């Protein structure tokens, strides 16, 4: 523990926080542009060339807006809730490594903020804290719509966290460690010299469950019931305005970036890519590109699918995703044991094949349920 180490931590933490907050600003622009192109529009293009100053204009507007506090709101919690929401969203990615370690000017530099040996557990626990901010924001506003939004988000986020956690478990089993660095290094290299050893190849259904569950976790369409404009006027942030609203908004978009970074690290090989062992500076570029692609996926899904009904959301979470992810954990464990037993890593192919079969059964069962006559009549 010397001065230089503390300074390095401070600089890395500061840089990463700035990247997340600047990324939030430009994610809003990215989303508006991508949605606009999907809808045959141009999107914001007035503030600066291609609208690149639009986030700054938005920020200035939000800062100067009047902040209202409802008369019968719980003032302390009303003020605290946006902060409780935004802090976990910023600190959750502390364990995500964004490049391999390398020597620079004779100094050994690690491109991550914290190396915790239970990194995945840290992510899960911090992700659960974000629920408090939202439910407190909904409750303290003294507004029935906000209350409903808060309650919905609690139920939804807690339900989907289980499927999310179980989809992490299969990745943990494959890597044999909960440390993020081990998970990333387990995904280095290639099979047959061209298929990358990413966990999305070994566990495609687990990745799919992760992607679906994260949509529910960050309250994105088609799982944006907590902030359903048509039913709840805006959900938990109905009564928020000005910078407090901006904080809630910031938390939502920062969570999107964070969850994409985590997904890219756990399932899509992290900073791994061609030539990354020779040129370590490629690592951050690779993970950045992967985050951008995953974010586009979220925007794309938002532009495509309508919001699903609340009871179907809960039924899907508990009756489909939870059993399916449990089955995937079982299949992954069996595949690993088989490979160890016969000392032949090719037996790992059991995992994707069996997972796809199980997912096919799940799809067929959902389809049969949805086509049942009494379900259709309602």
């Amino acid at each position, binding site marked *: 523990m010397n001065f230089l180490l503390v300074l390095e931590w401070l600089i890395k933490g500061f840089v990463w926080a700035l990247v997340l907050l600047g990324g939030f600003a430009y994610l809003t622009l990215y989303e508006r542009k*991508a949605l606009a*192109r999907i809808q*045959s*529009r141009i999107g914001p293009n007035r503030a600066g060339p291609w609208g690149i100053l639009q986030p700054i204009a938005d920020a200035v507007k939000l800062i100067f807006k009047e902040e209202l506090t409802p008369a019968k709101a719980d003032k302390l919690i009303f003020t605290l809730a946006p902060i409780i929401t935004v802090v976990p969203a910023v600190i959750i990615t502390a364990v995500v490594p964004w490049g391999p370690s390398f020597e620079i000017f004779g100094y050994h530099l690690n491109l991550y903020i914290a190396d915790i040996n239970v990194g995945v557990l840290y992510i899960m626990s911090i992700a659960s804290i974000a629920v408090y901010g939202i439910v407190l924001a909904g409750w303290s506003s003294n507004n029935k719509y906000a209350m409903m939004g808060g309650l919905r988000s609690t139920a939804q986020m807690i339900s989907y966290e289980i499927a999310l956690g179980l989809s992490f478990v299969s990745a943990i089993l494959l890597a044999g460690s909960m440390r993020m660095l081990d998970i990333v290094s387990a995904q280095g290299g290639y099979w047959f010299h061209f298929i990358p050893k990413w966990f999305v190849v070994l566990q495609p259904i687990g990745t799919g469950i992760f992607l679906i569950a994260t949509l529910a976790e960050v309250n994105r369409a088609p799982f944006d019931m907590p902030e359903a404009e048509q039913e709840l006027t805006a959900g938990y942030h109905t009564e928020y305005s000005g910078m407090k609203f901006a904080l809630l908004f910031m938390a939502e978009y920062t969570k999107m970036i964070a969850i994409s970074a985590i997904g890219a690290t756990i399932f899509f090989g992290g900073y791994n890519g061609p030539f990354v062992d020779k040129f370590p500076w490629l690592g951050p570029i690779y993970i950045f590109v992967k985050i951008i692609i995953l974010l586009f996926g979220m925007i794309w899904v938002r532009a495509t*699918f309508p919001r699903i009904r609340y009871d179907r959301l809960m039924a899907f979470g508990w009756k489909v995703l939870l059993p399916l992810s449990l089955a995937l954990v079982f299949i992954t464990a069996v595949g690993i044991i088989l490979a160890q037993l016969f000392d032949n890593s090719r037996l790992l192919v059991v995992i994707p094949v069996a997972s796809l079969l199980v997912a096919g059964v799940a*799809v067929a069962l959902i*389809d049969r349920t949805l086509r049942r006559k009494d379900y259709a009549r309602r």
Partner: protein
Amino acid sequence: MRVVEPVVELARGLWTTLRMMLDKPVTIQYPEQKKLVKARFRGRHVLKRYENGLEKCIGCALCAAACPADAIFVESSENTDQERYSPGDRYASTYEINMLRCIFCGFCEDACPTEAIVLGDQYELSFTDRRQSIYPKEMLIEPVPADSNPTPQKTEPGVYTRSVPEMKDPKD
């Protein structure tokens, strides 16, 4: 038992939205680019002139009578050969349209016996004050055509006696 179809249907939805990204945006960059209006568009009124520069409007106030919103106010005065504004005896010395009342129905256009008032293609009618909503004659009247004189004109006696132009085969 359908296993593949539900997934394919989801993928088809995603493909449809992704394909839309390749389409050209339909946006018109409004203040820089302007969309041409249709031929029968009803925009701001224009008071027309004859080729010789005389006003078509004869101040009969039929438009004001036809107006369902009571947006038009006309006051007429006598023409003389020394100071002639329009053919015939009288011309509109005051012609005002209140754009806050106008509903752009086009009845004034139908009522006009000389086809003097026409709903044009101008649709940028913003103003910042209620008083500016009343468009006087100077704002409505068409500019004088080239190679002709502005009104009032000095004319030969006995030429412009008919206020409504003669039509060979009036159909409408």
